């Protein structure tokens, strides 16, 4: 990958690295069919960072597991996902193996169980390079060591021979990130990479991602439930609720002009220095049961502004203003 030192301007035109169209995921369970993701579409461009926001169970993680072909065995995905213009959804395992870790990498939320406990850290890193790049053991070692330094792991040579349980949580997450970056992927997906960490460590890891977003042209997907993370890191945002994208916009547009009551609710939940703590509100109620979604808008039962149409007709994801999509029957006025 040619080293682009500065962050490239957002290129709305041109080919997207990752293009997702009408992606749906459902699971067959003993209790029936659960629809986890419904009709999600987005474009991701080189050097761009997409924030995906939602509560747990909103389908944000399943969307990207489906893209990577990592759904649980009872899950099935439909729609289309193009990576560099090539269809990768439901493709063969052989093709997936060539893409995963090489062009499309992921950092999972849980670094504690995410690394194989009985393999040395060095071996887990090197196997990515020997697999994808055909490197010799010593070449891979040199490259992996560089990568550990890049994610600021002290004494990489000594750490190389250690097992995961000898690392702290933050260090393990750094290893996971280093592992994902080894092949300089076109797209890096980070699935709540800081949730399991202490606040100070969170900040360090986010700084790492920030540097990554600014200094390479790897496209970044940041899955999170923390709008603060999105504000500091991302260019575009997709807000998900009950398996659907309900609002998609640029970060600026979303934060200054939120169009969906749910997004507004999320923003109101965010503690901010320039607001009284009394104005902090929680969204009442719970996310709906995915196996029996209501016919109308899934958010309507919790929405303070819902009216009768919301209960019978599901709003489609439409353009509110240029580059800002929302799925809500309310008029644009907040």
């Amino acid at each position: 990958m040619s080293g682009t030192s500065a962050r490239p301007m957002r290129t709305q035109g041109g080919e997207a690295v990752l293009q997702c169209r009408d992606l749906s995921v459902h699971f067959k369970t003993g209790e029936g069919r659960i629809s986890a993701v419904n009709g999600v579409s987005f474009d991701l461009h080189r050097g761009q960072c997409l924030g995906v926001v939602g509560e747990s169970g909103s389908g944000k993680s399943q969307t990207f597991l489906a893209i990577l072909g990592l759904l649980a065995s009872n899950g099935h995905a439909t729609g289309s996902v193009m990576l560099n213009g090539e269809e990768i959804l439901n493709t063969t395992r052989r093709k997936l193996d060539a893409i995963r870790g090489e062009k499309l990498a992921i950092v999972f939320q849980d670094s504690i169980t995410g690394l194989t406990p009985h393999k040395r850290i060095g071996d887990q890193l090197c196997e990515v390079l020997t697999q994808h790049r055909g490197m010799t053991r010593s070449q891979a070692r040199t490259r992996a060591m560089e990568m550990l330094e890049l994610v600021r792991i002290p004494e990489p040579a000594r750490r190389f021979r250690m097992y995961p349980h000898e690392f702290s949580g933050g260090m393990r997450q750094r290893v996971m990130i280093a592992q994902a970056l080894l092949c300089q992927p076109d797209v890096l997906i980070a699935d709540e990479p800081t949730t399991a960490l202490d606040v100070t460590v969170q900040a360090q890891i986010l700084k790492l991602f920030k540097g990554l977003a600014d200094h390479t042209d790897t496209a970044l997907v940041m899955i999170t439930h923390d709008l603060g993370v999105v504000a500091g890191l991302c260019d575009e945002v997709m807000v998900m609720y009950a398996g659907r994208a309900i609002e998609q916009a640029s970060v600026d547009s979303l934060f200054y002009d939120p169009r969906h009551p749910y997004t507004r609710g999320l923003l109101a939940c965010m503690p901010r220095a320039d607001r009284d703590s009394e104005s902090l509100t929680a969204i009442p109620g719970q996310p709906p049961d995915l196996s029996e979604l209501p016919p109308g808008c899934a958010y309507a039962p919790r929405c303070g502004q819902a009216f009768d149409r919301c209960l019978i007709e599901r709003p489609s994801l439409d353009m509110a203003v240029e580059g800002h999509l929302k799925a809500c029957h309310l008029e644009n006025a907040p």
Partner: protein
Amino acid sequence: MLSFIFRRLMTAVPTLLVVIAGAFFLMRAAPGGPFDADAQLEPEVIDNLRAAYDLDRPVLEQFVRYMTRLARGDFGPSITYADYSVTELLAIGLPVSLKLGGVAILVALVVGCLMGIFAALHRNRWIDYVTMSIAMTGFAVPAFVVAPVLTLIFGLYLKLLPLSGWNDGALSNMILPVIALALPQIAILSRLTRGSMLEVMRANYIRTARAKGLPEYKVVASHALKVVSLPLVSYLGPAIAGIMTGSVIIEQIFGLPGMGRYFIQGALNRDYPLVMGTVIVYATAIILLNLLADVIYGYLDPRVRRE
């Protein structure tokens, strides 16, 4: 690692002493003795015999004398097989039992693990159901039913394999006893492997390995197998004990000249030295193999070693 092995050895020695003492006093505690059946013998002859085998002394003294001799490696003379020492009988029986049991445990491990892995990788498909049905059958149909049925089919009807006998461990004589002995262990091992495999394949680090772009055989071989094998290693001890107790019956059914026969004969005839000898050999084998299993476990799981 060495200190780990040493500490385990330190507990193995007292365990063996408990076995020896337990078996010794258990047999002496019962009324009657080895010469009860020989009613035609003169009382003086019996007295002489009892003196020859130390049986006229107090039990505690008998034990001390037995242990001193044992320390020199002498198991004493057999009572039933009057012309043989127990050591000689063991020298006949042990190689047979060792070969039979060793081959059976190897067969059980290889076949059981392969079946379990295949079933897990094809979960809820016909190959899973077929292997698990076989496993269930092996579990529910005991070896002493399987063995006669096998001889009936392959020996009597098809005339492919000999009905019984050892024939110096010829392959054709080994097949049926090994199958009968290994089958219950195959059943348990394959179920264990399948369960362990299913659990491990759900782990987050397996998902990570797949996300790295490793092909499935590498995911299984390099990230799953070690952890999958942990419960199997834990089961190795009971499996070996199962093979040993099973071999007692299998040797009887197929008329094999192994240790099991001497153990049963010894127990029935109150041949104290013979029973002691066989029990000590069985117990030593079980304790040593358990030790081996512990060491393998420590080797496989880096977290155990450091404790």
